[in-house]
């Protein structure tokens, strides 16, 4: 089994250091390297890595912000990397969460890797719960669902707040995210995106559309059982009868 690994550190040299060490591991394939939080969020969504080495302190969005944005539900197993974070490390120790300190101790690094391998062989909710508990200890509300989406375009990454989204429509392998008159293309399937969004806030109403429940103004049913959702901005989205139940449940 190869472990598709993403490296996240704001420091070029530190990334090279992780790379150096991981090259010797035959089961590790490095699928990407990110130098800031925003591109890390985009890379996690897009590449769906098996394992992420995540620096905690980065300017702008730090490691915990990355987790909050991606949502614990979609977050792959993480090995935290940090130079000095007394409080975070205490919480990690308490909840048995993997981390390595910079400068990196070779033996400790191997230990972290073998823990990660074990976790990957027995996937389950346990790691997510441990991370949630540690974040809770640190006064950071653990979030199961994505709070932000990172949209990659040429040379930059745009972060959008999930609550601002009106609706999302499928466009081939992409998802078209509609915020007012603006459109953002996200390279992710609707099914995957649905898994990251809080089901209390978003509803899948057809194979091709997700709507923000708060934006729904009206529901028009047809004889066939299909329906049309009218949003507050005036737009109409066709809903399929197969998804009717989900929407009914949420609108009540």
């Amino acid at each position, binding site marked *: 089994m190869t472990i598709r690994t993403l490296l996240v550190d*704001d*420091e*070029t*040299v*530190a990334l*090279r*250091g992780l790379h*150096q060490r991981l090259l010797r591991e035959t089961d590790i394939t490095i699928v990407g390297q990110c*130098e*800031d939080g*925003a*591109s890390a969020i985009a890379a996690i969504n897009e590449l769906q890595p098996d394992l992420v080495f995540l620096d905690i*302190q980065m*300017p*702008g969005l730090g490691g915990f912000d990355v987790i909050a944005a991606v949502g614990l539900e979609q977050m792959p197993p993480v090995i935290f990397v940090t*130079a*000095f*974070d007394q409080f975070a490390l205490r919480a990690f120790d308490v909840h048995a969460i993997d981390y390595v*300190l*910079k*400068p*990196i101790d070779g033996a400790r690094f191997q230990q972290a890797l073998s823990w990660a391998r074990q976790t990957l062989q027995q996937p389950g909710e346990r790691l997510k719960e441990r991370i949630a508990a540690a974040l809770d200890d640190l006064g950071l509300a653990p979030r199961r669902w994505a709070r932000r989406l990172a949209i990659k375009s040429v*040379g*930059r*990454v745009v972060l959008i707040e999930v609550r601002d989204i009106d609706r999302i429509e499928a466009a081939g392998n992409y998802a078209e995210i509609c915020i007012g008159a603006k459109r953002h293309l996200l390279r992710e399937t609707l099914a995957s995106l649905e898994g990251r969004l809080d089901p209390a806030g978003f509803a899948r109403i057809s194979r091709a559309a997700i709507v923000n429940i708060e934006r729904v103004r009206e529901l028009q049913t047809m004889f066939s059982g299909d329906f049309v959702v009218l949003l507050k901005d005036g737009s109409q989205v066709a809903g399929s009868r197969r998804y009717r139940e989900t929407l009914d449940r949420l609108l009540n």
Partner: protein
Amino acid sequence: MTASKRRIAMVFGAWTLVGGLLATQAWVSYAMRGEPIAWGRALAIWLAWAWLWALLTPVALQLVERYPLERPRLARAAIAHLLAGAALATLDIALFAVLAPRVGSLNVGPDWWATFSRLLGTTFLLNLPVYGLVVGVAQALRLVRAARERERRALQLEAQLAEARLLALRAQLQPHFLFNALNTVQVLMREDVDVADRILVLLSQLLRRALESCATQELELREEIDFLEAYLAIEKTRFDSRLSYRIAVDPQLQGARVPSLILQPLVENAVRHGLAGQTSPGRIDIAAKRIGDMLELTVQDNGPGMDRAAHEGIGLSNTRARLRLLYGSQHSFELRAAGEGGLLAALVIPLRAMEGA
């Protein structure tokens, strides 16, 4: 017992003691003159006199608070107390003339006026220094209190200083920076031994300087800039092309005196925020120039500028405390939005050359 009740009790206690002593003295002296009087009678006379003064004492104390016998208004206070002393001595005698017949005083005339005139003539000059004595004691207590207050304030200042010193050390070099720099050395020594070697030397320079410095120490601007150069050189190695910097110092200002490592936290913030901008590399501009007889030091970055001025002001409270300690009101320190959306930290301190420079 409240403080004011305790004060009243102490005043009456002291005067009772004085009255008792003087009564005994009078009793002894009359006995030696061969005209013995009862000790109880002497006590009644002197206690009446003493308690009247006890009643007047708060007035005297008030007057000391109002006209303390201290520079710069010493003469004015002396005149005020002389007049007040005469008035209070007269008042004391007037009141005593009321009580004199009832306590069996020896100097009693046929009516109050006669008693008063007689007492005024024989005891006014004795009662005047009594007022002086009360004022003297009050003034002495006042000085003791002031000395104690000064001592308390000095201790407080010392504690503040010690704390500022400690914070300054931490602010100069964050542990985070240190360990990251060590990590850089660890990676580089496998890639390029010479570069690793250089970083290690720079890091040692920084550590040495940070360990030597303390909150109130000043050093030459040249040394401060050397420190920042070493710091930025390490950061530049860590972040490569994502960080650039420029230092512009008027050569004539090289020997100017600046608080040790005062710019370090500002530069550290600038690096952090300069790197936070995704689209453009971080850029730090450090400048020193002369404005009249003041020295202006600025650190500017091109990071995202929003709301930082207010936010970072809090993190730099230690910097502010040091500047206050060193220069009092003779400095200014502000954070403002820079032209290109970044933040500009500007520090203005008196321009002074190092001694012997």
